[in-house]
């Protein structure tokens, strides 16, 4: 069965060429062309021809990654943005030199919450099970976008927030609601703090967190054993959830950002970026023209 990777005209020409090597059955000619298509798919690491929706948006971060990797070879083209994203660039040279693939993942929207979850927490679970098995993860980072908010802080450090990133090690059992009812609260997942960072809500930038060990683990276990991450935001001075406009500083939940269109949300929502290597001899190092 054709994968659709070879256009119709090309396919007919290939079938004509294949006819020279087969007896005169059309099935045999088709089989030869299908084999050729399979090797094309293999080359790209695909199972079938991708069929994205017409208005599919490619996250700006990925466009920047492409542009940064192209380095001196980059030539402006209409499908790629021209501006740079604040706080984002290629990964460090020692990572870029040992990987040749970058993949982006958005979290599962319908799993952002679990029962009893505090309002200033959000669960980010990324389905990385689609990554080809021959690829080995070299590094992974969680990217969170934050937008400057202007609020009335007369004194103290009210504009400083703390971002805590936890890995969910174990979820409570499904009957957790009943089990925890003795204390009037639901049992919470077992988590491990991966990173913590103080942020100034007066700035707009991307925050990058190294989540390599957790992602490597997810790539080795079944999807249901990947419980994801939890992001917590607190006001640094009072250790309480951010209030008012400040609550929307870090772009975590879609329902907090009604002012952002769906098309724009694709570019601002949390993202997991994995850097992997498929064993072939190339890298994502920035390309530089050698001087004469």
């Amino acid at each position, binding site marked *: 069965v054709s994968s659709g990777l070879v256009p119709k005209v*090309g396919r007919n020409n290939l079938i004509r060429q294949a006819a020279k090597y087969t007896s005169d059955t059309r099935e045999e000619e088709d089989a030869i062309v299908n084999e050729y298509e399979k090797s094309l798919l293999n080359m790209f690491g695909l199972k079938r*021809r*991708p069929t994205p929706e017409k208005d599919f948006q490619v996250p700006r971060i990925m*466009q920047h990654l*492409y542009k940064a990797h192209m380095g001196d070879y980059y030539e402006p083209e209409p499908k790629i943005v021209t501006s740079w994203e604040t706080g984002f660039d290629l990964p460090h040279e020692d990572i870029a030199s040992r990987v040749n693939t*970058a993949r*982006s993942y958005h979290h599962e929207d319908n799993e952002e919450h679990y029962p009893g979850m505090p309002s200033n927490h959000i669960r980010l679970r990324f389905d990385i099970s689609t990554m080809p098995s021959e690829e080995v993860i070299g590094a992974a980072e969680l990217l969170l976008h934050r937008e400057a908010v202007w609020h009335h802080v007369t004194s103290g450090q009210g504009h400083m927030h703390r971002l805590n990133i936890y890995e969910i090690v174990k979820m409570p059992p499904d009957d957790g609601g009943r089990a925890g009812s003795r204390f009037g609260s639901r049992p919470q997942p077992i988590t491990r703090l991966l990173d913590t960072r103080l942020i100034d809500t007066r700035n707009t930038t991307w925050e990058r967190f190294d989540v390599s060990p957790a992602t490597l683990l997810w790539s080795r276990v079944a999807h249901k054993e990947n419980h994801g991450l939890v992001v917590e935001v607190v006001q640094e001075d009072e250790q309480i959830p951010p209030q008012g406009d400040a609550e929307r500083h870090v772009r975590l939940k879609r329902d907090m950002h009604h002012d952002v269109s769906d098309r724009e949300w694709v570019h601002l929502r949390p993202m997991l970026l994995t850097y992997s290597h498929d064993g072939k001899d190339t890298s994502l190092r920035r390309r530089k023209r050698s001087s004469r």
Partner: protein
Amino acid sequence: NRDSSNSSSGRKNRRKKRKRRNVCQRHDLYVDFAEVDWTTWIVAPPGYDAYYCQGQCPFPMSDHLNATNHAIVQTLVNAANSALTPKPCCVPTELGGVPMLYLDDKSKVVLKNYPEMTVQACGCR
């Protein structure tokens, strides 16, 4: 210059040029993804310079033809008896990678540097 083009030196020059054109070398080949209907899933680049190798592997083989020891011996055997074996082939001897930004079959965005996509040098092998 009509005079020089008709002169024997002009004819010689043209013959030399034609010979040079037939020698194994890299030729331009631009792969336009629109032509194979791949622009629906490849975001960038829109195409790339792939090049190809074509031409004769003549005797004597100059250094730039990157001939292997095997190709030199094959040339000798061909000279002794061309019916026994053909001349060496003109093939890519150095290949380079091309980075692509594309959507995979699960609509995930991928940036990957594919090796051996573009010819950097040709030679007789």
